[in-house]
């Protein structure tokens, strides 16, 4: 074991892990974080706390993670390279670990163009792969990125993202290999709607033996309505929502669409469970945290293992 992370313990014991996410509020509302956390208590092994997701300013992922930690939950700190340089990131990582946060996810982040501060500078001092290298070096060598010694290093369980649905497809496995070579311990993928394409990506992953070097958590998102399905299909870069999913949602009356979305989600998890190399699930129920328990339960993933 590299860390004390609950997520690492669950994965190392061979259980299918379950993570979910909590988007911090756009205002000083700590109770909102607690409320979202409550829905996930006992339901997941770690709770991703997003970092200014979609480039919109929110409560910092560090602060929201600390609140969840105070509640006895296991936050997973997301850090994007868009908003901070390497000094700020390392400071936050030390701070996070000092507050009991031992699991993190290294990301580039959505471009500022998509958010509410399109006029802001994009920092990108280092990229997500270089961030992974930096955190690993902090943890394993006790050294800052600049080379100086770091006292009592943060023992972070290091995560990274992978999007099997972006282009060029042939680079997608190689990019994962780079993230693992840099030091990623686990991966959370983009939301999977096109299971066939995901299977094809996993074939590539297995052919390089990458599933043995790192835990891959498959990304799942329940769709609330046919409108949401169309939006993700047409408007979100790097999302692959097959037409048949849109049609299935459209075939239901409006009030039955949320239920259909959850059903699609459960079916997807069942298919993914059969794919060699899938080590768990990352359920991204955007502003729908209250449904995560039902999904995890219906997917046969409750109760969560005690490790």
């Amino acid at each position: 074991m590299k860390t004390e992370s609950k997520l690492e313990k669950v994965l190392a014991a061979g259980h299918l892990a379950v993570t979910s996410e909590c988007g911090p509020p756009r205002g000083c509302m700590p109770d909102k974080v607690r409320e979202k956390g409550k829905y996930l208590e006992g339901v997941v092994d770690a709770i991703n706390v997003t970092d200014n997701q979609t480039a919109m300013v929110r409560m910092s992922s560090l602060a929201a993670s600390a609140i969840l930690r105070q509640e006895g939950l296991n936050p997973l700190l997301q850090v994007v390279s868009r908003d901070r340089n390497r000094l700020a990131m390392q400071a936050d990582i030390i701070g996070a670990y000092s507050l009991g946060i031992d699991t993190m996810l290294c990301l580039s982040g959505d471009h500022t163009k998509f958010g509410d501060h399109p006029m802001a500078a994009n920092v990108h001092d280092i990229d997500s792969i270089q961030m992974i290298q930096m955190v690993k070096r902090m943890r394993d060598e006790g050294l800052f990125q600049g080379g100086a010694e770091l006292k009592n290093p943060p023992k972070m369980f290091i995560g990274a993202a992978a999007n099997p649905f972006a282009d060029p497809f042939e680079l997608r496995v190689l990019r994962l290999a780079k993230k693992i070579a840099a030091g990623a311990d686990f991966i959370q993928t983009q939301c999977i709607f096109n299971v066939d394409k995901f299977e094809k990506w996993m074939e590539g992953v297995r052919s390089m033996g990458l599933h043995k070097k790192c835990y891959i958590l498959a990304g799942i998102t329940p769709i609330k309505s046919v409108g949401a399905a169309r939006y993700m299909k047409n408007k979100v870069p790097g999302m692959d929502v097959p037409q048949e999913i849109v049609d299935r949602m459209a075939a239901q009356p409006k009030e039955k669409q949320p239920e259909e979305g959850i059903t699609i989600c459960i079916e997807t998890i069942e298919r993914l469970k059969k794919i060699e190399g899938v080590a768990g699930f990352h359920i991204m129920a955007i502003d729908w945290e209250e449904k995560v328990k039902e999904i995890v339960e219906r997917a046969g993933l409750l109760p969560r293992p005690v490790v």
Partner: protein
Amino acid sequence: MITAERKPLEELIEYIRPYRRILLVGCNECVTVCAAGGRKEVGLLASGLQMALLKAGASIEVREHTLERQCDPEYVEELVPMLDGVDAVMSMACGCGVQEVARRFKNKPVYPALNTKFMGASERQGVWAERCMGCGNCLLGETGGICPIARCAKQLMNGPCGGSTNGHCEIGDDVDCAWALIWERLKELGQQDRYVEIAPAKDWRAGKGAGPRKIIREDLAE
């Protein structure tokens, strides 16, 4: 080359409104090539300014001159005899030229007529695109001759983000994904191995990180 675009006429008029006589100075280098501040553009802007002020019931005398190179003190010196009786200078060079004129003539206000944009190349007639950010430590040899720092919206140094779609960047279909271009090129060259190597965190000191930069060539410096 350095590319630039002319500022809106209204903004330029606000600069020169208090004056009766100005000198409008073009540059024969990059801004001539990108049709923003060469001799031709100097002529057009001079009459544009005069007409606009005339319509507003005011008037201004605009002297015109285009220097061989406005970022070079040797050529800037040419302006000395033209400044007599001139209230202000408006420069149609890039930011380097504007500053060189301002440095030389301390008692004359100098105004920029252009917005300096980027170091780029001409993609086709009338279209210029960014190619270089002047990071000071060129990595084009590793990336198939395509710069991810200048051409990836997130300046990713290790491959395309999850927003790359059909060769386009997530910020818009009119922007190429630099890493899609790099990958195609590496394949053509049989250099796919270069992609697998991790590019380490960049030392920005060679770029803007260490503050304003200077090149001193001992063999040439006087």
